[in-house]
């Protein structure tokens, strides 16, 4: 029986060895399900390499590079990783086709980090019926933490509702009599975060909301929404936007001379790909929250974890743009996967994969903020539940307050 001990890794050169075996017979005989042999472990993955969300395709490429690194360094427990990643073009029907191809044709052990709420929703039932793990899905929807109904599906990043609640808490404290204007993307992600925010504000907070305005991804600019938000006389502006629209909202708010308390969601908090293009001078004092280190934030320049990250990029995927938050995301998720695989030892069954994934105890990753830990249990399928608030000062984010948990969805 394997389990992960409480381990702190601050500056481990190879992140993978971040676990220890405590008791149990680790040397149990080898057990394999489809997709695992003495020589290799087949991992499936689905990414939108083409189509409207192709910006996220880089995640799959970084993950592939990371598994190449592991293989170059001897693999995990002597086994090489075979990472099979398919394109679904962000189309749910295609995701179903690709998931089935992975499971039935390529016969992977499990599917790791498939991206997008619609795609994951489409394959969730199938994966659970087939009893193939759908591990660490790349979406922040709250519904992935449902071990009772979907014991084969697990999230990874903090869910959007938790993030929304954290902002709500902060607002109730900072501006108890504030007037809030919210701009959100009209899709699963925007609505989920909005729900967390509204739940967090509660009955009292509901009266604080002056405007809930949605925008569509197909809109070239969101300027008119911001004009409308300002016209409500709000003194708090919450921007639930993806990077491009986040940058637009920062710029436009500054341009029209509006000075609200500006809350920008984590999705758009990258310095390199949002704050800088939007102009640092426009982004001062914006509040956001994060769980991962921003590779473009100068405060991590000498951080050992960041140095490892850079060394990895340089050696295995030099073409990746480190200012892109997705690159760090791919790195962190791949590391998490490696940790779980290592912990699984020679018991490479699908059941054990879920068991190990649900047995993360206070794991820290090089790319996560200090104090953010991965924790899971048989009843908790949400590995990262914490975020830390931060405020933009000069050219970097200043973290403040404690590491917070939104406690949404279990």
């Amino acid at each position, binding site marked *: 029986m394997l389990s992960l001990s409480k381990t702190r890794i601050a500056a481990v050169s190879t992140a993978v060895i971040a676990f220890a075996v405590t008791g149990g017979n680790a040397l149990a005989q080898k057990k394999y399900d489809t997709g695992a042999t003495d020589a290799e472990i087949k991992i499936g993955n689905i990414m939108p390499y083409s189509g409207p969300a*192709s910006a996220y395709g880089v995640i799959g490429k970084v993950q592939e590079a990371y598994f190449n690194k592991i293989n170059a360094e001897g693999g995990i427990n002597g086994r090489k990783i075979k990472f099979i990643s398919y394109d679904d073009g962000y189309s749910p029907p295609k995701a179903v086709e690709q998931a089935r191809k992975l499971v039935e044709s390529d016969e992977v052990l499990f599917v790791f980090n498939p991206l997008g709420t619609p795609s994951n929703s*489409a394959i*969730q039932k199938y994966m659970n019926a087939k009893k193939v793990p759908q591990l660490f899905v790349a979406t922040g929807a709250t519904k992935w933490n449902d071990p009772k109904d979907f014991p084969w599906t697990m999230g990874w990043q903090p869910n959007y509702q938790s993030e929304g609640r954290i902002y709500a808490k902060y607002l109730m404290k900072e501006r108890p009599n504030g007037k809030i204007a919210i701009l959100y993307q009209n899709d699963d992600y925007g609505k989920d975060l909005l729900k967390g925010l509204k739940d967090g504000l509660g009955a009292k907070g509901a009266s604080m909301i002056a405007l809930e305005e949605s925008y569509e991804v197909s809109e070239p600019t969101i300027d008119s929404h911001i004009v409308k938000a300002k016209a409500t006389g709000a003194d708090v502006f919450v921007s639930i936007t993806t990077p491009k629209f986040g940058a637009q909202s920062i710029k436009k708010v500054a341009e029209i001379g509006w000075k609200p308390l500006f809350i920008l969601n984590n999705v758009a908090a990258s310095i390199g790909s949002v704050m800088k293009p939007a102009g640092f001078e426009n982004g001062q004092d914006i509040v956001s929250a994060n769980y991962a280190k921003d590779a473009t934030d100068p405060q991590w320049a000498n951080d050992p974890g960041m140095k490892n990250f850079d060394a990895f990029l340089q050696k295995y995927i030099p073409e990746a743009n480190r200012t892109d938050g997705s690159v760090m995301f791919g790195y962190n998720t791949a590391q998490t996967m490696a940790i779980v695989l290592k912990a699984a030892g020679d018991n490479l069954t699908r059941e054990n994969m879920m068991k190990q994934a649900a047995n993360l105890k206070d794991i820290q990753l090089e790319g996560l903020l200090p104090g953010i830990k991965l924790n899971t249990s048989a009843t908790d399928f949400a590995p990262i539940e914490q975020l830390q608030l931060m405020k933009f000062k000069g050219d970097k984010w200043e973290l403040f307050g404690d590491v917070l948990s939104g406690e949404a969805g279990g």
Partner: protein
Amino acid sequence: MTTAHETATAAPATGKAAAAAAPSMNVARAASLITLALLLLAPLFLKNFYIFQMTQWLIYAIALLALNILTGGSGQFSLGQSAFYAVGAYTAAVMMEIMGVNYVLTLPAAGLICFVFGFLFGLPALRLSGIYLALATFALAVAMPQVLKLHFFEHWTGGVQGLVIIKPDPPEFIKTIGVKMSQDMWLYYFTLVVGIGIYIASVNLLASRSGRAMMAIRDNQIAAAAMGVDVPLYKTLAFGISAGITGVAGALGAIAVAFVAPDSYTIQLAIALFLGMVIGGVGWLPGSLAGAAFMVFVPNIAESISKGLSGAIFGVILIIIIFLVPHGARQIAYMAQHLIGKIGKSS
């Protein structure tokens, strides 16, 4: 002058095809029989995943058939088929999941609702032609996902999250006659039967009085009107029939994938359907199978060559195809017929 010239150049092409079709009717018949046999037998030897892929292929072929009836049959151009496909899919999903209706019954319902929707859309479309109609249908395709996630309908449609559908099992009688059949295989044969039914109906439609009326409109609208064809009626009818069949395909697609969401039915799908029609050969119903194969498999080929450039490779493959055979699979079939005819004569 111009119109006369256009019809003059268009006419030999169709005339040629017709002339070629007569002597090599047997070739065509043999080809259809072989295709049918393959369609019937292939699943018995394939893994479930491939059966699923074939089901997808058949479903897209049905949708392409519908588009062919519209563009090939009545000369109207649509970049908005994804909208009808979506309505059909959601009809099936809502009926099955919210109202608990049997999946078989959702198909006629989807067909009917889409027929009405298409017919109504065809009314304003009557006043538009060429590029304007393309734009209007394009607008419909762009607007549809936004309508689907509208908060008013959320109770039924599941809003941005979509709806998960329970995949149907093979009916009891299959078990009682002692055949073990997977859900995938059952759905495949179910789709095949529906598809063949629609194909036969479509062929008969195009050969009927109404079909000839529609094609007269395609060739020369004013001449058709002068001949006494009720142009507005047949144009809207073509839209309605095309939308109805597309709706059935959408419903089948929803059942096969067991999930509907606004993101499943974006403009990307409309464009893919349009390309499928061009690749298959505009107005040639059997070409729908070739076009659907393009839709299902070419993206996979592109991605297997390069992940980072899959879009570009897809584009290059597409360009190569339209350079080599601008008339699509129809042209290949014509050349093959020609070749077989020659061999037949010389031996």
